[in-house]
């Protein structure tokens, strides 16, 4: 009897109860936030094939590179990015442009700033980004312009990126000189300043950089990066010396156009519960005769949910450019010539480790300390150049409470 009353009561309740009515004032909103990244990098190299002294001489150089990146994401998912930094360069070989005799104390500074705005089109799953900036050093001034299109398929299994970059460079000295503060002239080695070796001073670089990624399964993702780059203008470095078999000496002279083709592939695999393996391979070819291959393997080991150690190794090889010969091996009647060992035939390896700490702890209200990365690499080239690279990166996130308005008064 009691069971009948219970069943009847439940049935009556089923007919009279109502489902949850959606609150018409509810609107899904993105949270506006700011990401701040503070970077400090240190680079130290040494070698004995400085192009400033014709392929011989010290290449001792240090670079201190502080950098800061600020990114603000609006509620509309649009993103504003600003980046700024300075590279302080101390080089012994820079002394030899005009034979100022000193130790590794001559220094130069490269200052740069870049800004970009990305517009999100939610109906198309597409982001369109426009960027520009400026970079200045004692012997050049550069203005970059970029346009990038990102598309993510609705299933999120595949992404496409198409990017066009252009760099407009002016290689004249004088902008940072206290006596001028405007571009004056190209800088040649002091003993070669009896003539103007070049009647142009501009360099133009155009890059088509593309990226395609494909999720293969729950643990694997593949990326493909085809790129085409074209450079035109003054591609020589005007303070590089070249010595010839007849003991004569000239300023480096390279062709005024260069076409580069490259293709990279990356495969990331999550193995087990704590290990990620990232493999990367790339091939490269240009019309100066350089053919190059690179392979890199990086393994991430999650020591704990907050700590990851990632050792890596990279191997690289390249053939020499048509126009390269070592010190005093160029014939005097050659049209194009360089003794810059960056364009020589060599192999190199790089090995290092990245330490990542991700505490995700609040420093202040709305300011979150996301993560810290400490990265060290040792690089060695078969011609004797070796260098050490050290980078520290700190990431913070700041949620903007003031942009969170009352849900009954949407924008």
């Amino acid at each position, binding site marked *: 009897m009691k069971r009948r009353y219970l069943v009847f009561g439940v049935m009556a309740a089923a007919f009279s109860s109502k489902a949850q009515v959606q609150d018409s004032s509810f609107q899904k909103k993105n949270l506006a936030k700011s990401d701040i990244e503070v*970077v400090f990098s240190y*680079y130290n190299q040494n070698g004995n094939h*400085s*192009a400033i002294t014709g392929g011989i001489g010290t290449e001792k*150089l240090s670079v201190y*590179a502080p950098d800061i990146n600020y990114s603000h994401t609006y509620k509309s998912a649009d993103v504003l990015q600003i980046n700024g930094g300075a590279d302080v360069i101390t080089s012994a070989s*820079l002394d030899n442009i005009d034979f100022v005799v000193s130790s590794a104390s001559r220094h130069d500074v490269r200052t740069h700033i870049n800004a970009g705005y990305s517009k999100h089109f939610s109906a198309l799953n597409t982001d369109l980004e426009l960027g520009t900036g400026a970079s200045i050093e004692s012997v*050049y001034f*550069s203005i*970059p312009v970029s346009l990038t299109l990102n598309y993510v398929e609705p299933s*999120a*299994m595949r992404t496409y990126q198409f990017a066009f970059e252009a760099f407009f460079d002016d290689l004249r000295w004088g902008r940072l000189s206290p006596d001028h503060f405007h571009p004056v002239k190209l800088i040649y080695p002091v003993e070669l300043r009896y003539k103007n070796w070049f009647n142009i001073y501009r360099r133009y*670089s155009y*890059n088509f*950089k593309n*990226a*395609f*990624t*494909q*999720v*293969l*399964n*729950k*643990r694997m*993702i*593949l990326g*493909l*990066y085809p*790129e085409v*780059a074209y*450079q035109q203008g003054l591609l020589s*470095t005007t303070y590089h010396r070249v010595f010839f078999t007849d003991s004569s000496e000239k300023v480096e002279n390279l062709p005024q156009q260069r076409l*580069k*083709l*490259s*293709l990279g592939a990356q495969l*990331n695999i*999550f193995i087990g519960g704590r290990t990620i393996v990232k493999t990367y391979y*790339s*091939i*490269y*070819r*240009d019309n100066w*005769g*350089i*053919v190059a291959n690179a392979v890199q393997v990086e393994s991430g080991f999650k020591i704990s949910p907050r700590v*990851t150690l*990632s050792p890596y190794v990279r191997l*690289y090889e*390249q*053939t020499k450019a048509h126009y390269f010969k070592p010190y005093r091996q160029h014939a005097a009647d050659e049209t194009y010539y360089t003794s810059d060992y*960056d*364009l020589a035939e060599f192999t*190199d390896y790089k090995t290092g480790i990245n330490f990542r700490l991700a505490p995700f702890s609040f420093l202040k209200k709305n300011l979150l300390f996301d993560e810290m990365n400490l*990265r060290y690499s040792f690089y060695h*080239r078969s011609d004797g150049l070796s*260098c050490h*690279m050290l*980078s520290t*990166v700190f990431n913070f996130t700041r949620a903007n409470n003031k942009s969170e308005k009352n849900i009954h008064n949407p924008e």
Partner: protein
Amino acid sequence: MNLNCSHKVMNKRFFIFSCCMLFAFFLFMVDGCKTVEPYQRVYLNDHEMQMTKNAGSKFEDYVHVVREGATVPGGTKSSGGCGCN
């Protein structure tokens, strides 16, 4: 002279062959992919699995662009600098 020409031809053919093989490998791996639902992406969404690079890695890419003759695919800058020794 003939040896130099054959070396260049071989390099060019190897380059084209490598590009085709990479692209074919990509298509092969892509063709049979099963959709991964959002609730199955715990490994794919891990920070270490992202295809982007951290700032330290980008700085090293810049060093490669300057110290090597090749451009780094997927890297950062591709000009705008003297690459001083």
